[in-house]
């Protein structure tokens, strides 16, 4: 009855190997992986500048693309509630993020788009004053963006 202990041994070895693999997967890689992670990107939300926030979230820069369609009002009477939406014809979209350049913290929202989810989202954001709004779509490992200016007549930060 030798096969039995052997099989057990193999199982244990396999187990050890997969644990090792899992361990590797959890290593804190470069920030480029942040968006693919399940963790809340706390650091990116704290940054003031838009370029810094994009870098912290994705670890690279975006190129403008007409395949990203950003829908935002030209004039927002109430900066506290500005409806913003984005759709795209790009394939293999994994995430969509919104940045409001003139806000105290540029990153407003970031959405993960798993396989099978339509790459598009509508939400409402706050804007401190007249500002550029940028939507970034991560597709097939690359970043594409669209930017639009929203004129805000009453800021969305109380005060």
């Amino acid at each position, binding site marked *: 009855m030798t096969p039995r202990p052997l099989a057990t041994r193999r199982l244990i070895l396999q187990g050890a190997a997969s644990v090792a693999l899992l361990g590797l997967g959890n290593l804190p890689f470069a920030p480029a992986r942040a968006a693919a992670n399940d963790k809340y990107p706390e650091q990116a*939300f704290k940054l003031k500048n838009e370029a810094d926030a994009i870098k912290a979230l994705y670890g690279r820069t975006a190129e403008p693309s007409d395949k990203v369609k950003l829908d935002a009002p030209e004039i927002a009477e109430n900066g*506290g509630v500005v409806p913003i939406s984005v759709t795209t014809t790009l394939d293999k979209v994994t995430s969509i993020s919104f940045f*409001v350049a003139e806000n105290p913290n540029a*990153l407003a929202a970031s959405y993960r788009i798993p396989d099978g989810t339509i790459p598009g989202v*509508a*939400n409402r*954001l706050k804007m401190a004053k007249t500002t550029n709004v940028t939507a970034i779509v991560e597709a097939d490992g690359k970043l594409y963006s669209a930017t639009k200016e929203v004129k805000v007549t009453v800021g969305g*930060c109380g005060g």
Partner: protein
Amino acid sequence: MASSIRVRATSNGDITEVQTLIQHPMDTGLVKDAKGELIPAHFIQQLTFECNGKDVFVADWGTAVSKDPYVKFSFKGARKGDDLKISWTDNKGGSDTITAKIA
């Protein structure tokens, strides 16, 4: 207590459209109250939509998302009658969950 989450998930053949409205102050931590004291930041950080054991949409939010947040998206692969589980957590450790049926 009534749930903080209101959701409408409607199936249109292969595609399910989800609209969600959540009651939450989404305080930025930059606004003062009537007495001139800062209202501490209090906002939803993560909102997850799960259907048939799989995340179909995950939102990471900062303070720039409007009070009583609204979000709309669509996904494939669900049918009428399937359960859609929605949960959020905020920066103060608050949370809420609701399970809605796709209509």
